[in-house]
């Protein structure tokens, strides 16, 4: 009966890059006050590239799977690429997200943008 794509269930049950970095260069944190979902992203940056990334958080399957998947999407990418990452890329990487839950899926992206703010 699940409307959740396999990829969401997979990332939710087996989160990638979950945890903290020793000395992150960039950190972004977002909370959805309506449900308590929280995502924290930590990035290590060297020579304009994301060399390491971790997420931490709690909440629903969608927000946590999206955070896990997002770490994979940006790992090793140039900051320029990461900065231009669009909502729809994340959503399609998740195999599509039900409209009533877009907010959950986009929470990690908002955390990423907060982390990147410190660059500009």
């Amino acid at each position, binding site marked *: *009966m*699940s*409307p959740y794509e396999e990829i969401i269930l997979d990332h939710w049950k087996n989160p990638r890059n979950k945890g903290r970095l020793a000395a992150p260069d960039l950190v972004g944190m977002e909370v959805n006050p309506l*449900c308590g*979902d929280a995502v924290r992203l930590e990035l290590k940056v060297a020579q304009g590239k994301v060399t390491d990334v971790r997420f931490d958080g709690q909440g*629903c*399957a969608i927000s946590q799977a999206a955070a896990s998947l997002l770490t994979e999407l940006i790992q090793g990418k140039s900051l320029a690429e990461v900065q231009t990452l669009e909502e729809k890329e994340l959503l399609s990487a998740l195999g599509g997200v039900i409209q009533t*839950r877009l907010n959950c899926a986009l929470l990690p992206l908002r955390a990423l943008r907060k982390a990147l703010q410190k660059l500009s």
Partner: protein
Amino acid sequence: MMDLAQIRGDFPVLKRLENGKPLIYLDSASTSQKPHSVILAESRFYQEQNANVRRGIYLLAYEATELYEAARRRVATFIGARSEEVVFTRGTTEALNLAAWAVGETRVSPGDRILVTEMEHHANLIPWQELARRKRAELLAIPISEEGHLDLAAFRKMLTSRTKVVAVTHVSNVLGTVNPISDIVEEAHGVGAVVVVDAAQSAPHMSLRVTELGCDALAFSGHKMLGPTGIGVLWAKSELLEAWPPFLTGGEMIREVWLDRATWADPPAKFEAGTPPIAQAIGLAAAVEYLERIGMDVVQTHGRELTTLALAGLQSRPHVEIYGPKKAEERGALVAFNLRGLHPHDVATLLDQEGICIRAGHHCAQPLHRRLGLAASCRASFHIYNTREEVEAFLEALDRVWEALR
């Protein structure tokens, strides 16, 4: 006794599909659905009698005013009150803001004590926080037991001669607990405190008699009791309404106005500044009429029956945690719960795929959720149009959610 099929036929939204499935609406504690008669009462007003009230002396305005005041009388009768004591507001929230402000202006001084409870909805908590801050008064919350009952012994200890007001919900919108208002009133009056009751979750489901409850003020919303959005009620004892200064000012609440000062009309007009929600008051009266035709006892019994069924079904599932009293007789028509390890949002989304609407979140009761050690919970709530079959479908769907996500 009650013809459920016919009642369901009165609610047009129930014909709608939700994600391709027949709609099973289990979120009436958030807002109820509306019968034809309520929808019609509003549109008929606009089509046949629309005019502003209290102002015009032509027939149309006279009729509109009569309908508006008849709505007030009907609501007053519904709660066993006099109509001069019924103030129309936008909803419970505005009513409680008005009460908190007015109690503050007339009774609370620095160092005085204000009591709320750990189970309050934000609407009956933050206005009192603001008052405490504004008047430098002390705000204390009556604790709850593990099963979600108020700790009355602790409450008694909190009462002092400086306790000026006790703000308490009649029925918790999360725990479902029905609080013993008349006992609380008796104790509070013993120290001279007034009691303000949040009846948002009780007015839709049980016969309220303000004189029997004994409280000093009471608030509820139309939209949770089959009525329109945009209308609610603050009832308060005449002595209070007389003493209270107005909350909002403007047209229709005045006696005489000069450029630098003004005097006020008598209650309830004093508290109804500006053009009121006229069509909505008339719609609320139609909702009251609908509920009274069924009978509030029947409404309550029906809600209890469905709650009993839901409680039993949830309790029999070991991966389900339930919050609040375990007996349906001690509850309003709602159950909050969680599936172990699953986020309420995921549960709600998966149920919605089967056409079942439940609420997931903190239900505007963050402190209570913190007290329970939760970020959020699921909540199923019922009204007169829900059936046993719907509750059973909900329980079965919950098993599929558990299978899919566990």
